[in-house]
Each structure stands twice: as structure tokens, then as C-alpha cells.
């Protein structure tokens, strides 16, 4: 009776099944010489001087090299684009001998002039290419006074003051900015961030927004050639999708596996390889020491006692982190004080300290939490768990959640009148860097307004002392004081993790939170 309709239905059904059948038949195979990486975010910039997120640095560290670099699996420095260097006795002049015959990926030569160009571009406001910024981490280069290039293979960096972390800073991912091709900067100008150009083992080729970011082997690389022909980074922001893609073979390697999914991958070693690597990371609560109640050391300690750090590390983060004992992460093996033990989980003691401080009935505080952010692990989850632990001893925290940039904008100028505590984390390559920024009385971004002359003195000593053994002693003293004074609540140190297909070989996570993929191959 209604034939046309049924005919249409039948046609549609046939068409659908054909498509479905085709669809199922097509299984795209990743070639053996290409590694597909499930990446946590979109790439934001190809300019190492502009990059701000570890996810960017994980990609950029395969394109750019600094004058020096970290050794495998350690934060010790070894030659990079410079083959050797000397430091003047006063610690203010660094002279680098550059590697000969290195060419940028665009074919232009790497030499002292290019290094000078690169550093001047960032630190000199009057440099013709300074407008290619903004350069958010320019303050890290703050100690540099000037750069000289007496001959093509020699670069001399003059510092304003002695600065012990200088080499580690140059070895870090940010150090990659010294290996930027001046020709490329001149050619692309403001668009350099979308094109890049370095000396590293891989060259950027394709950037499809939201889909993939492709690096290809630099055939003219000065060092040992990468085994892989290409790296494909797929931005998969959704955690769940990242896991699913890994499970279904859509990606070969996923860095930062959500804690809850770790067990799944670990359980199947025939199919997956799981990696872990502690790094210099600390997840902590920044306390506003300027205002009540955290102006009182006892309350700060009470907060440290109140929080069940083991439960967080084991339950919420599923063993992807370890409870933190003090301001210096254990990954700084030389500077870390192994005698410090995390504040024990002791609600009774916390209550007692709180009562002693004059808060027998507890106290209300405002707690800034962020939605996500570099190194913040699961900030909202952690925030809620912390809120619950604190509430159990009488610190009633009201959570205010902000998006990462807003969050930083709220915290960095100081929390006075706004909040009593905020969750934060840091990753740095030197034990000086973070404390100097956040705990020194005279630092602009000492947001907790912590004031301790002894700490100030120790930090000044630490950054000017070039002897590592002596430096280590200084930092251990520093740790003891800060542990006891508790301007922060020390929560956990993160172990970065990754999972790859069992056929992926030669992959290692690096403590510096970069991803070095030139030694990786697939079987």
C-alpha cells in the first residue's frame, strides 16, 4: 500500500549495512617506522621561548636542543650543542665551545651568532625580533647581562650575579631557545610560533588543528639518526578517549595515564609496557601566612597533620605519586634530605594544635582550587579530598574553583583578602628555582607572603655557591626550616607515567618531564 516508503526504508538499510561492513573491514595500520603518541593537549606553540606547558615541551624537546642537555635518566648536565664550557671563578662568565658543522633544519648554519640572536631576542626589549614574543619565562634568563660571540664557535654569556642553576636551566627544555634558527625567525616573524626551526633530531612538518601534529626525522641531524621516520602527536584532551585509543591501538604511546587506568595497562604486559619515572615535582597547598589562621605556625602544622597523604597517593592517584616530605623533591637526589619524613596523618594532633592556636571550634577558610593545569594531577579530586580531611579536624574549607590562567592570576599577586589556601604544584630543574620565587621575602610572586630571614639567607647562598656538595648542605638546612615552619602543606611528589604498546622499544621517561623519542623504535 505504501510501497515507496518501504522501498526507501530498504534502500537505506542496505546503504547502511554496506557502509558498516566497509567500515569494519578498514583497519588502518600504523607503519612500523612511525610512532603515534596520544598527547594530552593541543600544541600551542613551536617557539621554545614562548612555550609554557610541559605538554608543549614534550614535543619541542625533539625539535630543539640547547647548548647543554641532561644526561639520560638524570638531571646532570652533559654537552649538547656546545661541546665544552668553562665557568669563570667568580661564577659570572660562561664560555661555551660550539659543536662544528651543525646545521639548522632549514639548512642555515648553527653558530655563535645564532646563539646570540636567540638569547638577545628574548632578553633585549629593543631587539628587532623581540615582538615575536611574549616570552613568559624570560625571568629565568634574568641573570644574563649580555652575550658575546667572539668567533663563530665561541659564545660567552655574562651574568649580572653568580647564578649556580645556570647550566641546569640551559639544559632544561627552555634551554632549547638557544637552538632556534634566526633565519626561520626572520622569515616567519610573528608566525614563527606556527613554524619553528631548530637543530634537533626531528623536524616539524604537519600541523592539523585538533587532529595531528607530525614530526619527521631530520635527515641532516648531526648526531645518531633517529630510528623512527616520523612522530605523530594526536591531541586527545579527553582522558577517557586517550585510554580508549591506547587500548584499541589508535596510539602507540600515551604519556600521563589517568591513575585509575594504570592497573588496566599493568595487568596486560603482553600488550602494553608501563613506565614510571619520578621527577622534581611537588604538589602542595600554598598557605596565606599573612592572615589568620595560617599566620600561626601551629595551624599550618595542623593542616599538614590533618591530611592523609598516603591515601591520596595510593587511592586517588593510584600509586602514581608518593607522599611528599618537604619543599625539595627527592628527584633532586643530591639536594634532597632523606631524613625528612612526611608529616604523619594524625587528626588528633592536628585538632590539638588547632586548639592550642586558639581555634578549639575549628575555623573557616577559603580554598582556591583549579580545574586543571600543568602538573596539577587531578586538582579537583585532590581538592575535594583535602577539603574532607581538613573538615574532619575542624578546618572548614570553602572551595572556589577557577580555570588555570584565572587561578594563577588570582594567586600570583598575593592572596590577601581573597583566600587562605590554594593548591599548586611545581616542576623545576634546580632546587633553587621554585623556593627562590615563592618563599623569598623580596620575591614578587611570594604569594603566601612567607617571611623568614634565615630562609632568605640560605637561598641566596644556595644560588651563588658553585660547589655542589656545599650547595647540598645549604638546601638540607633550608628543607629542615621550611619543613618545620610549614608555609606549605606538602602533599605528594608525582611519578610521571606512560604506557606504550609492547612493540615499542627504547622508550624511557626522563626526570626533566621532557620526552626524548629519538632512540625509540617499534618491533
Amino acid at each position: 500500500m505504501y510501497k515507496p516508503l518501504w522501498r526507501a526504508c530498504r534502500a537505506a538499510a542496505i546503504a547502511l549495512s554496506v557502509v558498516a561492513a566497509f567500515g569494519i573491514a578498514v583497519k588502518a595500520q600504523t607503519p612500523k617506522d612511525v610512532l603515534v603518541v596520544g598527547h594530552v593537549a593541543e600544541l600551542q606553540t613551536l617557539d621554545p621561548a614562548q612555550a609554557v606547558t610541559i605538554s608543549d615541551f614534550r614535543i619541542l624537546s625533539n625539535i630543539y636542543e640547547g647548548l647543554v642537555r641532561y644526561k639520560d635518566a638524570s638531571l646532570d648536565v652533559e654537552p649538547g650543542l656546545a661541546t665544552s664550557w668553562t665557568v669563570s671563578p667568580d661564577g659570572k662568565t660562561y664560555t661555551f665551545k660550539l659543536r662544528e658543522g651543525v646545521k639548522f633544519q632549514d639548512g642555515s648554519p648553527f653558530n655563535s651568532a645564532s646563539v646570540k640572536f636567540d638569547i638577545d631576542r628574548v632578553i633585549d626589549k629593543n631587539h628587532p625580533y623581540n615582538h615575536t614574543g611574549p616570552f613568559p619565562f624570560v625571568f629565568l634568563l634574568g641573570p644574563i647581562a649580555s652575550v658575546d660571540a667572539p668567533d663563530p664557535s665561541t659564545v660567552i654569556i655574562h651574568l649580572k650575579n653568580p647564578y649556580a642553576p645556570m647550566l641546569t636551566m640551559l639544559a632544561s627544555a627552555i634551554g632549547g631557545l638557544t637552538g632556534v634558527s634566526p633565519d626561520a625567525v626572520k622569515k616567519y616573524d610573528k608566525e614563527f610560533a606556527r613554524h619553528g626551526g631548530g637543530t634537533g633530531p626531528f623536524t616539524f612538518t604537519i600541523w592539523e588543528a585538533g587532529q595531528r601534529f607530525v614530526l619527521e626525522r631530520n635527515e641532516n641531524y648531526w648526531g645518531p639518526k633517529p630510528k623512527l621516520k616520523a612522530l605523530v602527536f594526536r591531541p586527545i584532551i579527553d582522558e577517557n578517549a586517550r585510554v580508549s585509543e591506547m587500548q584499541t591501538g589508535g596510539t602507540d604511546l600515551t604519556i600521563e595515564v589517568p591513575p585509575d587506568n594504570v592497573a588496566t595497562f599493568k595487568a596486560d604486559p603482553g600488550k602494553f609496557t608501563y613506565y614510571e619515572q619520578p621527577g622534581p615535582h611537588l604538589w602542595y597547598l600554598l598557605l596565606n601566612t599573612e592572615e589568620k589562621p595560617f599566620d600561626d605556625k601551629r595551624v599550618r602544622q595542623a593542616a599538614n597533620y590533618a591530611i592523609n597523604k598516603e591515601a591520596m597517593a595510593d587511592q586517588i592517584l593510584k600509586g602514581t605519586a608518593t607522599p611528599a616530605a618537604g619543599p625539595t623533591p627527592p628527584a633532586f637526589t643530591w639536594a634532597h634530605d632523606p631524613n625528612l619524613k612526611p608529616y604523619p596523618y594524625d587528626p588528633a594532633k592536628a585538632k590539638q594544635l588547632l586548639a592550642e592556636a586558639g581555634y578549639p571550634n575549628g575555623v573557616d577558610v577559603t580554598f582556591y582550587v583549579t580545574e586543571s593545569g600543568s602538573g596539577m594531577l587531578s586538582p579537583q579530586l585532590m581538592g575535594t579530598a583535602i577539603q574532607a580531611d581538613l573538615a574532619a579536624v575542624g578546618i572548614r574549607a570553602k572551595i572556589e574553583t577557577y580555570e588555570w590562567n584565572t587561578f594563577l592570576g588570582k594567586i600570583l599577586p598575593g592572596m590577601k583578602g581573597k583566600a587562605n589556601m590554594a593548591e599548586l604544584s611545581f616542576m623545576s630543574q634546580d632546587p633553587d628555582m621554585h623556593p627562590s620565587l615563592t618563599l623569598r621575602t623580596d620575591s614578587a610572586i611570594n604569594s603566601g607572603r612567607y617571611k623568614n630571614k634565615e630562609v632568605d639567607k640560605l637561598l641566596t647562598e644556595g644560588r651563588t655557591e658553585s660547589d655542589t656538595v656545599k650547595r647540598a648542605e645549604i638546601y638540607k638546612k633550608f628543607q629542615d626550616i621550611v619543613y618545620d615552619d610549614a608555609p606549605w602543606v606538602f602533599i605528594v611528589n608525582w611519578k610521571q607515567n606512560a604506557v606504550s604498546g609492547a612493540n615499542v622499544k627504547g622508550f624511557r621517561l626522563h626526570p626533566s618531564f621532557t620526552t626524548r623519542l629519538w632512540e625509540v623504535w617499534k618491533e
Partner: protein
Amino acid sequence: MRNYILRRLLLMVPVLFGITVIVFLVIWLIPGDPAKAILGTFATPENVAKLNHDLGLDRPLPVQYLIWLGNVLRGDFGRSYILHRPVIDEVLDRLFPTLLLAGTALILSSAFGVLLGIIAAIRQNGWQDKLITIAVLIGISTPSFWLGILLIFWFAVRLAWFPVGGMQALFGGGDLVDVIHHLALPAITLAAVAGAVLVRLTRGNMLEALRQDYVRTARAKGLSEGRVIYVHAFRNALVNIVPIIGLEAGFVLGGAVYIETVFQWPGIGRMLVSAISTRDILLVQGGVLIVATCYVFINLLTDIVQCILDPRIGQA
């Protein structure tokens, strides 16, 4: 009819103008200093001052708007400070995938929505009708993002029939079959809700059309039921369905935000979600403006189709 289309085109001018005003005002809605919000982490005083000047935020609102509109008309939507590229470039890169997804979903939902709607209407109160009604009820009550997650879990992860996400295979992909393969789950998810709404409306409009006097006239002429239903009733129902399809286009374009997020589709929706979370306001502005403009044109198209279908409209 030509006059009608011309009039409709002219009417688009104030609407497009209004869209730009609303989109522009989004910046004005930002509490506090917009420049600071836009620059986020990079909000050094010099940068803020520079952006304030670039955006003309130091001038009166109407002047700001005119400057902004002038830039927009020249294709300059400003620069994303997060992605380090002109907003327009990013938006255009993302536009095609969104249109592909939304377009497929719209076609799927229209085709199945109308088809099932007709079946439900001509089998009113029969088992087909009841089955369709239940399916529709579930369809309009299901959050699309939830449906998407369930579909991925079963059809991509468990059964591995379809890819988990993305628009094309990284290798050997990009051809039609591959894209359809990737498109299937997200498009079906997106089409499910829109289609359900359409089934209802088609059913209602068909039933209404079938009750009209002219259908009785057609039957009184001895025409076959097929002709009565498809030529006489359906054409009239279609006049009311077409504008709904236009509305559905908006529904689908908006719903793409969820679906793109869940299915890693490289479209504008996903871009907007990350732009919102990084407070990349200029990118949000540009994305919304472009999609809204597309939508206005889609509506123009449905109006023209409706005008072709119904000779009365062109003369009204």
C-alpha cells in the same frame, strides 16, 4: 519568488549585524578587565596596555564596536594568545570538520526523522507507531554526550567496529570510506536527538495534513492512497517540516560541541570548549561568529526551500 528571496537576503543584513553586536558584547560581559582575561598568564602591564589599545578598549563602546567590526569585515578576528595564530586561521581549519559532522548528522536525522515520522503517522496507533514513539521518547530524553560515551564504549572499545575518535585514519586514511567510518558513531549520536524531535514533528504534521479537507478531496477523486499520502499530504507537511530542519541545523551545530569533545572530532565545538577553558576569548568570539553566520545562511536556504515548496509564501 525572486522578490521574496531578495527580501530575505536583505533581511539577513540586520540579523548579521545583530549577531556581530551580540558577539561583540560578549567581551564586554567579561567581569573585570577583558584584556587581562584575554591575555591570562601573559598579562604583563605592557601587554595589557597594548591589547587594550589594539582592541580599542580604551575608547567608547560604539567606537570600539566599529573598530572591531571593521577588522572583522576584513577577516581580522584578532589573534589567539594561546595558539599564537590569527583566530580566523584556526577557525577556518576547524570549520570543515564541524560542517561535515553537523551536515551528516542533519541529513541522517532529517532522512530518518521524516521517514519514521511518516511511518508513525500512517500506522497511527499500530505497533510501528508505538515502537517509534517509545524510541523517540528515549531519544529526546537522552543526553547526547552520554549516548556518545556509551556508543564509544560498546562499538569502539568493546566491539572495535569503529574508531574511538578522530576524523580520519592517520595512515592510509582520508578517503571517503575512511571518513565515513570515522563519521559513523559521532554522526549517529548527534543525529539521534535531532532525529527524534523531527519524528515527532513529522508525525504531527502528517496527521494534521491527513485531516485536511484537500486530502478528502483527493480521496474523493479516487486517487490512490500513495498519491494521497505522498503528493497531497506529505508535500503540505513538508512545508512545516522544512523550517524545523532549519532549527535542527542550529541544534546540531550546537550539539556538535559535546560530540566533538567526546569523539575527538577536530571541529569548532571542541575548539570552543578548550578556548573557554583557556579563556581564549577572541577565539570563542571568532568561532561563535563564524558558526552563527553559517547558521544564518542555512536558515536562508531552508526559507528558500520552503518558498519553493509553498507558492503562498513568496507572495505574502
